[in-house]
């Protein structure tokens, strides 16, 4: 180990102690949101993030929350620091969700940011963002695929003061209350965010009380420096070169036209430029991805190349330059609709992994399920509206030395699933099945994770369903000879009368009582040649119903007895030699 610790002007022990303290504060903020939030999407799916920023608005600590969102704070923070310079006062709380002008991602994600003052001077910010269950617009849940401009997606809030010098902005509270179908949930979740900011402020002030504001600042700067220096060292380890990859979104509606995410990564010395030139132009649907999220997903993918120890502060983002052409799906311009932009962000992560697989194959991961499938059911029951927002993940692609993982959040997210029993207790829906799907993991020396299946039956008179999924026509890629994962599917009433839905229907789907909707996710991509997979591992997969005996023979070249799960060594050798001969 080299003495690569804190900058030399700082005491290395104090440096570590402050680092501990900051991340513990950010985690505590996350805990407060989780435990006091109201909506299922926040409290159970945990679609929210927390961070602490220094006085420059740069992140110094991240809560253990959503990787893909954490890198989106800088866009909003830069604007607050610039636009409210001199106009920020103790007791202020900022709020915004506008992607075109405030650094937001999409309208349901509301940021609540509290500046922290000590002895009258601005020293930092406590930051939270949460996906709110409804901010109005043309569909319950505010994620309408078929929206063609942002004004159909709900209430748009530029950076405003929710509290002004400690005084609540009642007007703003009432506007929010009147513009959501779920006022109790939205206001409850906002209170949870405010509580988290208060906890963040309290912790930060304690640090200042101990070290003094002037004493703390150099350590915060030192954290940024250290993160930057270590990230540059990681990048230096990646061979210089230009690496290109294209991944795709299946496209929207009944007759989808694929959308391309083209990435070119230039690694030069200790910095990286990630350029999305060649990416498809923005579309008249809700999947355009505002640039804050593109930046965030890029930082996340590059951060994953580095060891876990690097402090999770903005310094590690500094060696990375992101370029996304204006007017493309990765940098849409007003008034592009963007509520369902998440899919694009996760594909940015996948595309970068695909490019980096050429440069650092040991460090990357084959494509996973493609990011969360967003599903909402809404309707009326006994005169009261109901809404279910499901954010469904996930499965991992394989790694150079490890199989993929089934039943896990996307690596760029950190989401949870909603208990079936809670859904059924609160909503007129039955969850018919929640299971893994055999033969859906991309074959490889390391197998991709299996897809999951989730099936619902409507118990209300009628339910309106919106859906955003992907990865049917362009399933998750494998690496180094690994096969792609299985494709996704969406079916109403599986069976002889089934109706196959597009991955991204452009209109709400009306389901009557008793009708069934089934979503199958994509499976994870494989890694390496399936014929090199250990026969014992294949047999184990067959025993566990994760791979069929037929697929074992045909895809892996392994003869497994479907009754005893024993490997027939001689037959396996013949199968595997036969292919070699054919080559």
């Amino acid at each position: 180990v080299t003495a690569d610790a804190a900058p030399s002007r700082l005491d290395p022990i104090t440096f570590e102690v402050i680092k501990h303290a900051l991340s513990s504060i950010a985690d505590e903020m996350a805990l407060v949101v989780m435990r006091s939030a109201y909506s299922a999407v926040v409290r159970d799916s945990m679609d929210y993030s927390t961070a602490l920023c220094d006085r420059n608005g740069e992140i110094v600590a991240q809560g253990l929350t959503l990787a893909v969102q954490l890198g989106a704070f800088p866009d909003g923070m830069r604007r607050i620091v610039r636009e409210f310079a001199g106009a920020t006062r103790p007791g202020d709380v900022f709020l915004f969700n506008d992607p075109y002008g405030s650094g937001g991602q999409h309208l349901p994600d509301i940021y609540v940011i509290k500046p922290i003052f000590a002895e009258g001077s601005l020293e930092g910010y406590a930051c939270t963002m949460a996906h709110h269950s409804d901010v109005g617009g043309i569909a319950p849940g505010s994620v309408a695929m078929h929206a063609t401009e942002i004004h159909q997606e709900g209430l748009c809030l530029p950076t405003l003061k929710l509290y002004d010098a400690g005084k609540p902005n009642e007007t703003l509270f009432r506007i929010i209350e009147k513009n959501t179908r779920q006022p109790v949930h939205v206001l409850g979740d906002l209170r949870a965010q405010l509580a988290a900011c208060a906890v963040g402020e309290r912790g930060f002030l304690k640090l200042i009380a101990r070290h003094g504001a002037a004493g703390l600042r150099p350590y915060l700067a030192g954290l940024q420096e250290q993160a930057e220096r270590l990230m540059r060292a990681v990048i230096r380890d990646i061979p210089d070169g230009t690496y290109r990859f294209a991944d795709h979104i299946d496209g929207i509606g009944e007759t989808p036209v694929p959308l391309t995410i083209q990435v070119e990564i230039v690694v030069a010395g200790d910095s990286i430029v990630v350029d999305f030139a060649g990416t498809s132009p923005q579309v008249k649907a809700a999947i355009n991805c505002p640039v804050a999220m593109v930046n965030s997903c890029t930082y996340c993918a590059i951060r994953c190349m580095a060891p876990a120890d690097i402090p999770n502060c903005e310094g590690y983002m500094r060696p990375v330059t992101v370029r996304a052409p204006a007017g493309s799906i990765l940098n849409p311009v007003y008034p592009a609709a963007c509520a369902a932009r998440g899919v694009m962000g996760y594909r940015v992560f996948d595309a970068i992994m695909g490019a980096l697989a050429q440069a650092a194959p040991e460090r990357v991961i084959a494509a996973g399920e493609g990011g969360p499938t967003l599903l909402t059911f809404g309707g009326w029951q006994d005169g009261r509206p109901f809404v279910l927002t499901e954010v469904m993940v996930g499965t991992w692609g394989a790694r150079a030395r490890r199989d993929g993982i089934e039943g896990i959040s996307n690596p760029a997210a950190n989401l949870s699933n909603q208990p079936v029993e809670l859904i059924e207790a609160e909503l007129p829906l039955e969850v018919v099945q929640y299971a893994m799907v055999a033969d859906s993991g991309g074959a490889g020396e390391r197998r991709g994770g299996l897809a999951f299946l989730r099936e619902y039956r409507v118990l209300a008179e009628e339910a309106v369903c919106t859906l955003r999924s992907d990865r049917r026509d362009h399933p998750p890629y494998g690496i180094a000879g690994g096969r792609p994962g299985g494709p996704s599917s969406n079916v109403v009433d599986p069976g002889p009368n089934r109706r196959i839905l597009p991955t991204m229907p452009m209109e709400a789907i009306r389901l009557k009582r008793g009708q069934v909707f089934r979503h199958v996710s994509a499976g994870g991509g494989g890694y390496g040649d399936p014929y090199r997979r250990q026969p014992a591992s294949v047999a184990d997969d067959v025993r566990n119903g994760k791979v069929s005996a037929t697929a074992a023979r045909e895809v892996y070249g392994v003869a497994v007895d479907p009754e005893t799960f024993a490997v027939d060594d001689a037959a396996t050798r013949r199968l595997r030699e036969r292919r070699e001969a054919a080559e």
Partner: protein
Amino acid sequence: VLLIEFDPNLRFLPIGGYALNSTARQPRDESQAMDTVRFGVDIGGTFTDLVMLGQDGRVETCKVSSTPGDYGDGILAGIDDVRRRQDVDASAVADLVHASTVATNAILEHRGARTALVTTKGFRDVLEMRRLRIPVLYDLQYEKPPPLVPRHLRFEVDERLGPRGEVWRPLDEASVEAAAEAIREAEADAVAVALLHAHTDPSHERRVVALLRRRLGDRVYITGAADILPQIREYERTSTATVNAYVGPVVSRYLSSLTRRLKANGIAAPLAIMQSNGGIMTAEAATLRPASIVESGPAAGVIAAARLARVLDLPNVISFDMGGTTAKTAIVEGGEPAKTTEYEVGAGINLSSRLVKGGGYPIKLPFIDVSEIGAGGGSIVTLDSTGGIKVGPLSAGAVPGPACYGLGGRDATFTDAMVVLGYVNPAAIAGGRVAIDAARARQAVERAVAVPLGLSLSDAAFGVYAIAVASMTRAVKAVTTYRGRDPRDFVLTAFGGNGPVAAVGVAQALEISRVLVPPAPGVFSAFGLLFSEVEHEFVASRFRRLDGIPERDLAQSFADLEARAVAALTADGYAPGSIRLRRAADLRYAGQAYELTVPIAGDRASPVAVAEAFHDEHRRTYGHRSDRDPIDLITLKVLARVENRTTDDDAFVGALRHFGGGSGQRRSRPAYFGRDHGTLETPVIGRGDLDAMAREGPLIVEEYDATTVIPPGARGRLDGFGNIDIEVSP
């Protein structure tokens, strides 16, 4: 500090000093021969601690090497040793309270039973899908814990209940027969049955259990999920039942073998087991609910701290227990340890923050809310890739142990750094039994920290201390500030071999002004076993809007639970008059996902009063209340506790005083207290050298099984119970 090295020839290490000094043998006469004694036995990874308490107030302690092959060997040998030294007849042993890691180890080492799982059709993968969360950010090489039941041993039966227990599809018994046949063929030793919504109506699940039992016989261990956890959320309930089944055969084998061997040795006393919630249960009950004993060791320490809090009349106490491999902390309010039902076994560290989920196997039963980190005396000091000092979680264990033990260990450990600082005796510890090689400690810390970071040796060692204190501080925050409690309102009670070394540092970091180090800190946890109470929680899942529940229904539900509690405990042989019942409810604002547990005082359980108690607890924990929002009642609870002579505070005080404290050789040595104070010549004394007059730090109190460090700016005195009472200046 790991005090005692592993030496197969030295199996028994009576904790000398106080025990021998203070329990001068008295000639036995007839009346004393009738005196009974009680044993507390706490099995740890390295040592088994025994404490014997006589009816006449005699106390004896013993540390024995744990015997993982059959822990019974160590226990019996230890009991024999103590009995010999105290001249106690086997027939005089009236009580044996036991904390064991048997269940935990079975999970950590994946040595549990070959277990099958039976679920509702369509949901056999719930166990493996878990709740999806990843306990780390940005780690593409992450591996999640493998399911305790592999997919090929998970079977489905055809049935379905709705959320209010309504039958959506009747139970198809043929599908149960098919599952039973498959389980029989697979030669599983244990089965968990977890059907959807069985917490609202367990009839299908119980029928499946009955059919399986008929088909599989008594040899197979079967757990019905709703019977051990009648609560909503299928994954957590399934996981809890699976853990229970997985460890069931191991625990029941262990307990029946131990009972048998005790009997063979003439000890007919009933075996009581410490639960993770701090209550004790009979061995039979533990056999049925082994998932409830996985944290029995850490619980014992908290129970001891709680008892101390009660006798000293301290409203708020933090228990801080640092041993050889981990540090554990919990809070005690009003004499009651804080509880949680969100626990994962095998998660490596359990910061109790509830945020880091997915690293282990959830058990949603009542646990004392213990936050545990991998930092103890034997914890190895390393630098991470950023040059940051890390203490643990890898441990040098008892073999080879810290470098300063001279047993071949080369890694620097926390103990080595404490030797370098002058906190731990640089020549020998454990009353001279364990030689310390200070030169090796210096070399190890030099190599691991000082050279790579370019620090002086003293600053490097102090860095190790500061980082360990920082991570322990985080653990304490996890049970205080993370729960909305201000640590400054608490007294820190430090025990375990290393707790008293680091306690004042932790207190300073959290602005805690008072630290207590009880007598015999090294065996304090085993001591707690003797002062635990029989405790069971009875729960009923409700899931209803609180304001829609008539007051008499609420009262009736509580009354039903109380009747169940009394019936169960009387069946265990306890007198109804000795059973104390307390009511509580888990509530949340409609729409929230996490409940708060609110005690319901007295027997008036009006929904209005319950609501007010909930609003108030919500404000206390999260800083706000929403009086207009509807409240959901999720669970009603009755906590039943048996009060008997073992709960006698006087006996506790007597035993504390009995330990007393030996007098040290009065001497001094240089000790380093960081750049602010530098190296100071520090008096080194025994506990018995302290008295009611506070002495200014720096001061080191050396005892057989622990070292207490009182740095400059703190003052120590001895209270009337033998505790070292330390006042910490902010």
